[in-house]
């Protein structure tokens, strides 16, 4: 294919993309070019912009920890406005590829044809003859892909070789596509179905045992085989309800509202309903009501009897006390007359004492007068008297009065007064006794009236009250006894009915319910079988997916091995040549990368050796310096690029001299110059030595030179053109 048969890069135009805030246009004019400038002035941005504009994404693993939009966001500029346009030329033919993040459009224009979206993508791939993976592998060497080869971890180095060979997608898919989750799921479906089956079988067994037990109990309760169905049970319920109705009628209780249950589920509440009805009948039955009334009456009579005896006793005691109090006065008629007599006695005694007092006074006065007059005549009768004898007589008499009669009279009066006080006390006590007796009599009379009312008599004489009460008590006791028999009989009937209802529920209904449960369980079993079929189907489906993913995995493994091996093989002659030119190792003049297929991945053996002596092979990492590895990687890339068949005549190499020593940089510059004569090479670098070498070997004569002088939100670019 002649150069004019392939596409060359004419121009890149970008806006709001990473290191470019405004708009930046690099007009390559299809020529090889050098982009040089210090770190961070936007050189790599151009390489990324070319890839993004063409493909809208980056290979997996390039952006492991950040979002795509954040990656694109300009350092200073508006987020979400990235825009890029790339123009390619092939002879007179021009293709423009543009991408606009704001509008989400991707467009390819060839001649007058404008295509968008998927059509544009297809056109791009077919026109350029490569997809993104091939573009990255054979057109654009970004420094980040070389850097991985320098890492210490074998896994990381293998991944870097994957990226260099463009087979990292295969390994990414190998890592993620797993058959095990599907096979595990298949096992889980089967285990789940099996355990469900076992659980159902155990439940089945339990239900059958419970059913057999219920049948046995029903037979022990006297039910026959013909009773073990819902129709027979309904008939039993009907009979039971009739018995309850009959009982209610017999005992004049309100009729029950019981009805035959319409279903076994409803029947489960039936015995409780019957129990409530029976309690109602028992409490409202006439014999029960009457028994309670009669018991109340008997209690009342018994109360009256006690009260009567107590009241009568109290009254009799009071009467006896009255009689006892009246006894002392029995001979004197009315007791009040005795007090009058005592008062008269006291008055009489008082009069006597008064007279004796007057006599004493008189005699005293007479003796005084006699003493005063010293007369021989009596001061009273004026008769002649013997004064001394008279005085003696008077004195004797006065002394007799003072110490005898008067003292005696006063004693008698005091005795009479004391007697009167005692008499008065006795009379007061008598009066009180009489009041008490009267009250007791009134109570007795009142009680008698109450008893008469209770016994239904008009009046009952006192002497007959007790007897009548005893007769009534006996009558009540007899009535209670008779009623209690009725009530006991009712209780027996109720117990029998309740037992019957419980029997029906505990045996017949249990049998029927268990039978229904078994029937439901069998239906569940049928459903379970359908579910089992579904589970088996799921298990089979999971197994099939497991198998398919495993086949895909095996195919991927083989394909990766094959692609990597093929690419290495194709690139090998040129890679080896460049290894010799760039690395110039004094001993290990050859290298080889081979694939090692393992169970779940393809590893690489990267070894250097003495040319023609395979047994001298040593692991490259142990022998080569970082710079030598970098140079080897560039050589591999060039080998891969030159051995690939596609429609682009472009190599975009980002920073190829990292870690290189001066001789190696010089060799690299010679290589770039040499290649620039054959195809479009775009090299970006910050390495002044490398730039000098490039100029020294005439790169600037074959290429445009873009010097990115500084960066202040946007790269400041100056261009110098060779005369060519």
């Amino acid at each position, binding site marked *: 294919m002649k150069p004019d048969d392939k596409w060359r890069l004419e121009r890149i135009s970008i806006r709001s993309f990473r290191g470019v805030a405004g708009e930046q246009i690099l007009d390559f004019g299809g020529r090889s070019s050098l982009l040089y400038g210090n770190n961070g002035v936007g050189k790599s941005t151009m390489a990324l912009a070319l890839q993004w504009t063409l493909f809208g994404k980056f290979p997996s693993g390039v952006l492991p920890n950040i979002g795509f939009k954040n990656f694109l966001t300009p350092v200073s500029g508006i987020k979400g406005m990235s825009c890029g346009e790339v123009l390619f030329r092939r002879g007179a033919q021009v293709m423009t590829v543009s991408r606009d993040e704001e509008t989400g459009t991707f467009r390819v224009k060839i001649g007058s044809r404008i295509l968008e979206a998927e059509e544009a993508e297809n056109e791009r791939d077919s026109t350029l003859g490569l997809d993104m993976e091939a573009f990255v592998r054979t057109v654009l060497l970004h420094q980040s892909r070389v850097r991985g080869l320098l890492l210490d971890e074998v896994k990381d180095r293998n991944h870097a070789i994957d990226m260099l060979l463009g087979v990292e*997608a295969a390994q990414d*898919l190998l890592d993620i596509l797993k058959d095990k989750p*599907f096979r595990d799921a298949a096992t889980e479906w089967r285990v789940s179905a099996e355990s469900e089956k076992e659980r159902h079988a155990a439940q089945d067994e339990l239900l059958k045992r419970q059913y057999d037990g219920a049948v046995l109990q029903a037979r022990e309760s006297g039910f026959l085989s013909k009773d073990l169905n819902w129709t027979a049970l309904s008939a039993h319920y009907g009979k039971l309800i009739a018995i309850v109705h009959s009982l209610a009628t017999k005992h004049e209780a309100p009729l029950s509202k019981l009805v035959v249950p319409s279903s076994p589920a409803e029947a489960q509440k039936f015995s409780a309903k019957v129990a409530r009805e029976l309690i109602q009948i028992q409490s409202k039955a006439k014999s029960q009501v009457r028994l309670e009334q009669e018991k109340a009456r008997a209690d009342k009579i018994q109360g009256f009897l006690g009260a009567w005896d107590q009241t009568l006793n109290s009254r009799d005691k009071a009467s006896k006390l009255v009689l006892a109090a009246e006894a002392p006065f029995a001979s004197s008629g009315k007791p009040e007359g005795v007090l009058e007599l005592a008062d008269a006695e006291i008055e009489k005694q008082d009069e006597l004492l008064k007279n004796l007092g007057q006599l004493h006074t008189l005699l005293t006065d007479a003796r005084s007068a006699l003493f005063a007059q010293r007369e021989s005549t009596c001061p009273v009768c004026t008769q002649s008297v013997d004064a001394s004898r008279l005085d003696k007589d008077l004195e004797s008499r006065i002394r007799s009065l003072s110490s005898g009669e008067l003292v005696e009279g006063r004693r008698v009066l005091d005795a009479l007064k004391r007697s009167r006080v005692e008499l008065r006390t006795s009379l007061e006590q008598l009066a009180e006794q009489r009041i008490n007796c009267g009250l007791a009599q009134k109570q007795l009379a009142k009680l008698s009236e109450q008893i008469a009312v209770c016994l239904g008599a008009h009046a009952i004489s006192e002497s007959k009250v007790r007897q009548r009460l005893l007769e009534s008590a006996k009558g009540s006791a007899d009535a209670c006894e008779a009623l209690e028999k009725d009530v006991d009989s009712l209780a027996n009937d109720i117990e029998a009915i309740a037992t019957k209802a419980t029997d029906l529920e505990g045996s017949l209904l249990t049998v029927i319910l268990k039978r229904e449960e078994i029937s439901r369980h069998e239906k569940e079993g049928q459903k379970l079988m359908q579910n089992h079929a579904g589970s088996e189907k799921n298990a089979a489906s999971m197994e099939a997916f497991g198998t398919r993913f495993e086949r895909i995995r095996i195919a991927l493994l083989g394909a990766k091995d094959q692609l990597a091996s093929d690419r290495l093989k194709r690139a090998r002659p040129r890679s080896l040549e460049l290894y010799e030119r760039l690395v110039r190792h004094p001993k290990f003049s050859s290298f080889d990368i081979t694939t090692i297929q393992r169970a779940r991945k393809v590893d690489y053996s990267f070894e250097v050796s003495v040319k023609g002596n395979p047994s001298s092979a040593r692991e490259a990492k142990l022998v080569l310096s970082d710079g030598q590895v970098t140079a080897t990687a560039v050589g591999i890339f060039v080998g891969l690029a030159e051995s690939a068949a596609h429609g682009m005549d472009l190599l975009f190499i980002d920073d190829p001299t990292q870690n290189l020593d001066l001789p190696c940089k010089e060799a690299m510059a010679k290589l770039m110059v040499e290649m620039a004569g054959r195809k479009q090479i775009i090299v970006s670098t910050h390495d002044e030595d490398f730039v000098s070498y490039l100029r020294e070997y005439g790169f600037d004569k074959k290429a445009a030179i873009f010097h990115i002088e500084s960066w202040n939100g946007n790269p400041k670019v100056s261009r110098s053109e060779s005369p060519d």
Partner: protein
Amino acid sequence: MSELFDAVEKRLMKEKDHEETVALWRRVWERYEDSGLDGVQELMDAHLIVPEDAK
């Protein structure tokens, strides 16, 4: 179309009863192209059915 896709498909085609597997591979690749590995994982999750009691 990708060389990797073609290489895998070619290998799968050689298998017996490969239709379903090839169809699945195409879906896997389509999701990988559209949404990367996340898309592939979503596809696998969508196909994976496990019993409720195993979740």
